[in-house]
C-alpha cells in the first residue's frame, strides 16, 4: 500500500473512483460494496484494512454465526454462568467467591506453515484472552491433531508444534495439564492445533472489553508493533491452502513469551489496584479489532492517534499498523486520574505503555495519522455488523454409503491368540500409545497447584489452598465418529469430556468448544458443521452445561479434501476438595474392578476398525446423555464418599485400553473375567459410550453396589487388581513389561 498521497477521509470522499485492493485483502465484491454503502463513500485505505480483517471469516464468524446462535437459544438455565458467549472468554462461578474463565481456540493454519511459532502464539493468544477477563491464568491444555504418525511431514510439524507449545507455555509459568494427540491421514495438510487456557479470579475482579466514560484514556501496552502477522486472520485463517499461491510464512506471527509473562504480571497488578475500566487483548486483527470492539461495546466513541503507537519498524504504513498481529500487546481503558499509576506499574515491569487515544461522548471511531483523519466509522459496523451468510448446506451424497459400510461386520479375531495380537497392536498404535514423549516437554508442576495432569482423565488444579477447592478440565473430540454422524459425533465429544471430568471426581459445569471443519463454501462441510452445532447445543441443554464461548476454524482443507469434521469440546468442572480426586492408576492389589454402564457391539469409527482394518464406516456408538449424567453422579458420589480408589473412562480403544493404562500407571496388573452375555472381543474392544471402570476397596464393595443398584446404573464385577500382568481368564495374558514396551515406545520411535 502506498503512503503518498495519504488516503484521508477527506481524500476518499473527494476521489470516489479510486480502485482499492479489496480482493487482495480477502473481501468479496458485495462485501466491499456494503462497506461503501455503510460509509456513504469509498473507504480510505485504513478503513478498508480494518473492515477486511474484521469481516474475515476468522473474526466475524460470518459463515457460522447463524448456526452458533443455537448455543444461546438452547442454553440451559445455569446459575454458574457469570459471563456468557461474546466476551473474550466465558466466566463460571465455582463457589467460595471464585470465578473461573476458560476457552479453547484454534491456531491451525499458522501451525502448519510455521509449526513452532504457530503453536507458540496460539498459547499466547488464548492466555491473553484469559487475562483480559481479569483472571490469573492457571493452566493450559492442548488438543492436537496431526497427519499419519509415520508420514514424513508429521515429523516436521509435530516436533515443532510441541516445542512451540512447551517453549511458550513453560516460559509463561503455566502448567500444561491436558489435551489430546490424535493422528489421522485426514489432517495431513491441515493439522489442528487447538489451545485452551483456564484462569481464576474473585467474582469482583471480572473485567470486560468495553470503553466507556468520555475522557478516559486508551493505553496500548506490551510489545512494539511490527510488520509480522499482517493479514493473519483474513488471509491465512480464512482460506483454503493452495499450492498455486505464494508462501504465507510472513502472515505468521512470532512470539516472545518473556514479554507475555511481564504482560500478565503487570496487568494483574493494575487489576489489583482497580485501575482498569475496560480491557482487550490484541490478537487476530490487532488494533483494528481492539479499538473497534472496545468502542462498540462501550458507551461512546473513541479517537486514536496512530502516530503514538510504538513501532518496531518505522516504515510501517497506517494500514499495516492497524492490521499487524504482532503478539504480546494489550489495550486498556483507564480513567485520566489513574493513568500515571498505570504507567508506573508498566514501567516497574519494563513494559512499554503509551496513551494512544481517548474515549469520546460521540459515537464514531476516529483514527488520526500525522494530524489527518484516516478513519471515521461507526465502530459497530466494523466489530459487529459484519456480513452474515446463510451458506447452503446439504447432507453429502456419500453419507448413506459410508454409514452402510458397517464396521460391526468386519472380520473379528478367530482365536484367543489373534485377539491377543490385536490388543497388543492396538495399545501400541500411535493413537492409543502413551504420549509421554510429548507431554514430558511441558511443565506440569509450575504454580504448585497441579493435582492431576495428563495422562489422567482430566487435568485438575487446586484453586484455594485452605479449602481444597479445585477445578478440572477435559478436552475431547473424535473426528472419525463425527465423520460417520456429525450430530452424534459432537455429542460423543461432549459426553466424553463430561465423563472425563466426572471420572476424576469433579462436577461438570460448563462447556467451551473449538469447531474445526473444512471449507464452508462446500455444502457437505456446511452440513457437517450445522449438524455438529445442533448436536452440541442439544447435548449441552440436556446435560445442563452451557456453552460459554469458543472458536470456529473453517477452511481446514487442502484442495477438495476436507478434514474429518472435528468438534473439540472442553468441559470445566468443580470439586469441593481436591483431596477427594480419583486418579487413573490402580492403587492397591486386591481391589475389585467394576465396569459401569452397558456394553454393546459398537465398532463404527473404533480404534480397532482403524488399526486392524484401516476402516471407517458404519455408525458411531449410541449416545445416551441421561445415562452419562447418571454415570457422572455415581462417579462423583463415589469419589466424595471414598468408595473408589481409581477410575478410568472408557472411550477409544475400549475397555482393554483403559485397563492397560490404569495398570501401567499404577505398576499393578489385573485379572479380568469376561462377563456373562458378552464375548471377549466385544468386552475388550467395543467403544460403547457411557462407561467407566472403577477400582473399589473390598471394604466398600457392598456400599458401592448398593448405591449403583439404588440409582439404576448397571454395574458388573469384571475382575481384580492383581499381579504383574493383564490377564483375561481363558483368553490370554500380557505381562506389564510387554505392554509397557508396546505402549510407551511408539511415539518416540516415530517422531523423536
Amino acid at each position, binding site marked *: 500500500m502506498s503512503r503518498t498521497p495519504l488516503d484521508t477521509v477527506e481524500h476518499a470522499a473527494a476521489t470516489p473512483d479510486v480502485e482499492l485492493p479489496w480482493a487482495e485483502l480477502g473481501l468479496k465484491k458485495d462485501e466491499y460494496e456494503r462497506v461503501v454503502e455503510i460509509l456513504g463513500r469509498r473507504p480510505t485505505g485504513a478503513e478498508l484494512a480494518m473492515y477486511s480483517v474484521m469481516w474475515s471469516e476468522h473474526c466475524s464468524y460470518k459463515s457460522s454465526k447463524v448456526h452458533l446462535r443455537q448455543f444461546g437459544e438452547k442454553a440451559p438455565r445455569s446459575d454458574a454462568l457469570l459471563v456468557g458467549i461474546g466476551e473474550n472468554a466465558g466466566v463460571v462461578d465455582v463457589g467460595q467467591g471464585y470465578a473461573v474463565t476458560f476457552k479453547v481456540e484454534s491456531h491451525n493454519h499458522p501451525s502448519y506453515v510455521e509449526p513452532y511459532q504457530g503453536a507458540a502464539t496460539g498459547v499466547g493468544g488464548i492466555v491473553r484472552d484469559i487475562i483480559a477477563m481479569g483472571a490469573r491464568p492457571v493452566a493450559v491444555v492442548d488438543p492436537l491433531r496431526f497427519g499419519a504418525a509415520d508420514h514424513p511431514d508429521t515429523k516436521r510439524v509435530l516436533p515443532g508444534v510441541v*516445542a512451540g507449545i*512447551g*517453549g511458550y507455555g*513453560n*516460559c*509463561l*509459568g503455566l502448567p500444561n495439564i491436558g489435551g489430546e494427540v490424535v493422528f489421522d491421514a485426514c489432517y495431513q495438510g491441515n493439522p489442528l492445533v487447538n489451545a485452551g487456557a483456564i484462569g481464576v479470579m474473585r467474582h469482583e475482579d471480572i473485567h470486560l472489553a468495553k470503553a466507556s466514560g468520555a475522557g478516559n484514556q486508551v493505553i496500548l501496552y506490551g510489545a512494539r508493533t511490527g510488520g509480522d502477522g499482517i493479514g493473519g486472520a483474513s488471509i491465512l485463517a480464512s482460506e483454503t491452502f493452495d499450492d498455486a499461491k505464494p508462501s504465507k510464512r510472513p502472515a505468521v506471527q512470532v512470539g*516472545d*513469551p*518473556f*514479554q507475555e*509473562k*511481564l504482560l500478565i504480571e503487570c496487568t494483574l497488578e493494575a487489576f489489583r489496584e482497580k485501575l482498569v475500566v475496560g480491557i482487550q487483548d490484541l490478537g487476530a486483527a490487532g488494533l483494528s479489532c481492539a479499538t473497534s470492539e472496545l468502542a462498540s461495546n462501550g458507551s461512546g466513541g473513541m479517537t486514536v492517534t496512530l502516530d503514538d503507537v510504538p513501532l518496531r519498524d518505522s516504515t510501517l504504513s497506517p494500514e499495516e499498523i492497524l492490521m499487524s498481529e504482532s503478539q504480546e500487546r494489550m489495550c486498556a481503558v483507564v480513567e485520566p486520574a489513574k493513568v500515571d499509576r498505570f504507567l508506573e506499574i508498566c514501567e516497574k*515491569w*519494563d513494559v512499554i505503555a503509551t496513551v494512544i487515544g481517548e474515549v469520546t461522548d460521540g459515537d464514531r471511531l476516529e483514527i488520526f495519522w500525522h494530524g489527518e483523519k484516516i478513519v471515521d466509522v461507526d465502530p459497530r459496523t466494523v466489530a459487529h455488523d459484519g456480513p452474515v451468510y446463510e451458506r447452503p448446506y446439504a447432507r453429502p451424497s456419500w453419507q448413506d454409503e459410508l454409514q452402510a459400510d458397517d464396521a460391526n461386520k468386519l472380520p473379528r479375531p478367530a482365536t484367543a491368540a489373534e485377539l491377543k495380537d490385536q490388543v497388543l497392536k492396538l495399545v501400541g498404535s500411535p493413537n492409543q500409545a502413551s504420549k509421554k514423549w510429548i*507431554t*514430558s*516437554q*511441558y*511443565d*506440569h*508442576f*509450575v*504454580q*504448585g*497447584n*497441579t*493435582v492431576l495432569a495428563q495422562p489422567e482423565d482430566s487435568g485438575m488444579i*487446586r484453586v484455594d*489452598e485452605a479449602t481444597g477447592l479445585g477445578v478440572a478440565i477435559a478436552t475431547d473430540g473424535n473426528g472419525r465418529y463425527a465423520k460417520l454422524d456429525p450430530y452424534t459425533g459432537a455429542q460423543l465429544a461432549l459426553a466424553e469430556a463430561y465423563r472425563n471430568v466426572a471420572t476424576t471426581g469433579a462436577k461438570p459445569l460448563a462447556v467451551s468448544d473449538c469447531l474445526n471443519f473444512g471449507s464452508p463454501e462446500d455444502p457437505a462441510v456446511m452440513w457437517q458443521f450445522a449438524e455438529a452445532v445442533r448436536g452440541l447445543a442439544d447435548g449441552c441443554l440436556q446435560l445442563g452445561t452451557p456453552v460459554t464461548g469458543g472458536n470456529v476454524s473453517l477452511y481446514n482443507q487442502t484442495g477438495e479434501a476436507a478434514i474429518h469434521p472435528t468438534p473439540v469440546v472442553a468441559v470445566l468442572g468443580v470439586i469441593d476438595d*481436591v*483431596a477427594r*480426586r480419583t486418579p487413573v492408576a490402580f492403587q492397591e492389589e486386591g481391589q475389585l474392578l467394576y465396569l459401569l454402564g452397558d456394553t454393546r457391539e459398537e465398532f463404527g469409527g473404533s480404534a480397532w476398525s482403524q488399526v486392524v482394518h484401516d476402516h471407517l464406516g458404519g455408525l458411531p456408538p449410541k449416545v445416551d446423555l441421561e445415562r452419562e449424567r447418571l454415570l457422572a453422579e455415581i462417579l462423583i458420589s463415589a469419589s466424595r464418599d471414598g468408595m473408589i480408589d481409581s477410575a478410568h473412562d472408557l472411550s477409544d480403544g475400549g475397555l482393554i485400553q483403559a485397563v492397560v493404562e490404569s495398570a501401567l500407571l499404577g505398576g499393578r496388573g489385573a485379572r479380568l473375567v469376561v462377563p456373562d452375555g458378552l464375548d471377549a472381543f466385544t468386552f475388550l474392544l467395543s467403544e460403547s459410550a457411557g462407561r467407566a471402570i472403577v477400582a473399589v476397596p473390598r471394604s466398600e464393595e457392598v456400599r458401592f453396589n448398593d448405591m449403583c443398584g439404588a440409582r439404576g446404573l448397571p454395574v458388573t464385577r469384571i475382575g481384580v487388581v492383581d499381579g504383574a500382568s493383564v490377564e483375561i481368564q481363558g483368553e490370554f495374558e500380557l505381562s506389564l513389561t510387554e505392554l509397557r514396551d508396546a505402549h510407551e515406545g511408539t511415539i518416540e520411535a516415530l517422531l523423536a
Partner: protein
Amino acid sequence: MTARIGVVTFPGSLDDRDTQRAIRLAGAEPVALWHKDKDLHQVDAVVLPGGFSYGDYLRAGAISRFSPVMGTVIEQAKAGLPVLGICNGFQVLTEAHLLPGAMLGNDHLHFICRDQKLRVENADTAWTADYRAGQEIHIPLKNMDGRYVADEYTLDQLEAEGRVAFRYVDFNPNGSQRDIAGITNEAGNVVGLMPHPEHAVEPLIGTGRTDGLPFFTSILKKLVGA
C-alpha cells in the same frame, strides 16, 4: 522466633510464589525480594527461584546475574548468607561465579519435565542437613538448559571436596557430567540444583511426594537453632 527467607523475583521468574509457599509450609516466613531493589530487608537466607528470568535470552541466568539485588546477594553470600538456587536460580549462581561450572542445553535438545530420582551426596550443607547422605529422593525436574558442565579439574575438585550435593540416579535427564544434579560451595552455605524441591512439599500436589520439604526445614533449623 522464626527465620525470614527471601525469594527473589526477577522478570520472568516463575516459581517464586511456589517457593514462598514451600517456605511457609516449612514454618519459616517468606519475604518477597525484587530484582531492582538492592536491599535484602534483613532476611536470614535467600532463594533464587526457577523460571526463565529475562526469557533465558542471551544465556540462562546471564542477565539476572547483573541485577541490583544480585550485587548484594553475591557480597553477602561470600560472607556466609545461605543461598539456594533452584533451576534458573542455579544458572544465575553459576553465572555469578558463586558456584563453579555452567549449564548447557539438554543433550536431547528438548525441554524435559519428569519426576526425577536423586541421591543426596552431601547432607552437611545449610540446605541439606535434614537428609541423610546417600538418601534417595524424588524431586520434579523441568528444564531446557540443565546439562551441568565444568572442566575436569573442577569436577575432580568438586568430587574430592564432597561438593557434589546431588546426583541423578537411574536416568541422567540432560547429559550432565558425572550425573551431577546439584553442587555446593566450599562453605556449604550456597547450594544450587536443577530439580525443584519446592514442587515436592505437599502430598496431593504435583508428584504427590514431599521429598523436597527437608530443604526448607534444614535451613529453618539452622537459622533458629531448633
